[in-house]
């Protein structure tokens, strides 16, 4: 199974392969949980988010089409969206600190993940830092704090049209900043070779 691409793994999951499903969790569950914790600021809710995401994976893997992009992107996109939905549903105040100190990263993650992830994190932080403040701000408030565009308009005291165009420009700028650092997200977020 180690030789399979993520697409191959997902195809197995789509056929009900429980071992492939476990492997997918071992590969991406940590990243999904970390993202969920960052957004919902509560470990139990974060666990719910991850469980819901993997439930969706289990039921939808069969119809996942490779033209939709990398499975890792799909998994993290679903995780993000479910986390943001939960923030809104639970009306959690976004500035709340985490309930306790984060545990150290798992000492035994899926091996091929770890070194690559550390490098990626630095580069992404660098790419974000390159963005003009207004651009970085809309991305961070929307992506991590779950602000809707109308809430952003209110908070930033700009018209919603400005929020939309700024968001659009910001994501383009982020893509270019990543590219300048040699990262192409569409190809990058896949730890196995296809």
């Amino acid at each position: 199974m180690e030789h399979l691409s993520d697409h191959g793994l997902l195809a197995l999951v789509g056929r009900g392969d429980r071992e492939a499903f476990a492997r997918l969790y071992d590969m991406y569950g940590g990243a999904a949980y970390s993202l969920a914790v960052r957004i919902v600021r509560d470990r139990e809710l974060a666990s719910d988010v991850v469980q819901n995401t993997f439930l969706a994976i289990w039921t939808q893997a069969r119809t996942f089409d490779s033209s939709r992009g990398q499975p890792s992107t799909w998994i993290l996109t679903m995780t993000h969206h479910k986390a943001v939905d939960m923030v809104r549903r639970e009306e959690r105040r976004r500035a709340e600190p985490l309930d306790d100190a984060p545990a150290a990263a798992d000492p035994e993650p899926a091996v091929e993940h770890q070194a690559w992830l550390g490098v990626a994190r630095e580069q992404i932080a660098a790419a974000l830092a390159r963005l003009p403040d207004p651009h970085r701000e809309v991305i961070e408030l929307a992506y991590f704090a779950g602000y809707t565009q109308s809430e952003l308009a209110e908070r930033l005291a700009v018209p919603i049209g400005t929020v939309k165009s700024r968001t659009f420009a910001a994501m383009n700028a982020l893509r270019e900043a990543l590219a300048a650092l040699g990262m192409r997200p569409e190809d990058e977020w896949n730890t196995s070779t296809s």
Partner: protein
Amino acid sequence: MEHVDELIAGHALRALSSEDEERVVVHLAECERCRRRLRETEAVAASLAYSVPQVAPPPELRSRVLAIAEPVVSAPVAEAPVAEAPSRPARPRTRRGWWPRFSLVAVPAMAIALVALLAWNVSLRNDISSNRDDLASGAAVALPGVGNVVAQTDGNATLFAHLQPAPAGKTYEAWVIRGSVALPAGVFEGGGTVELQLTQTAKPGDKIAVTVEPAGGSQKPTTTPIATSQGV
């Protein structure tokens, strides 16, 4: 066709209003160019996921997740699809945009619309040259007088409804019509744009209907349709 480039970024960040979300989702169902843009943008957004501090999941989460894939061993249950239990959960099951409160407003003549998933049916009879991405992304069909339904190939469907708030003591209810059977698919109060993830999956040939029901919803539609579209 009016593209939705600017909205794709907001959609990838899940930051759109229900109205904008509907515009994008309906458009994406029919536009490969914009789906491609979305994939690129989602990949960029996913990079943000990797920028967060890594926190170890609790071991019991792994057990919970793997339990999803375990076969369920239990007493025989009613064959799928299972109708909703009479008592509804207190909170309606929408993905987002929780119910705004509205004062009582008269509803126009009861809006019941039947729509066949024509586009979906047609796209499933594909020849080799047809765009299989249409299948991958599902199809959008209009629900005249109500809004739109967007159905995915895996059967998950979302209703976008623009209706006056239901009158006091009443609620709107969505149905998946399969043959002669109406399957309950979720209740909503109406008012503004509502985005409702149908609680019943939709299969090719199914129709979607909306009726007005007593508060809490019904097991079977209690009002007769006044508008019907012919299925294929």
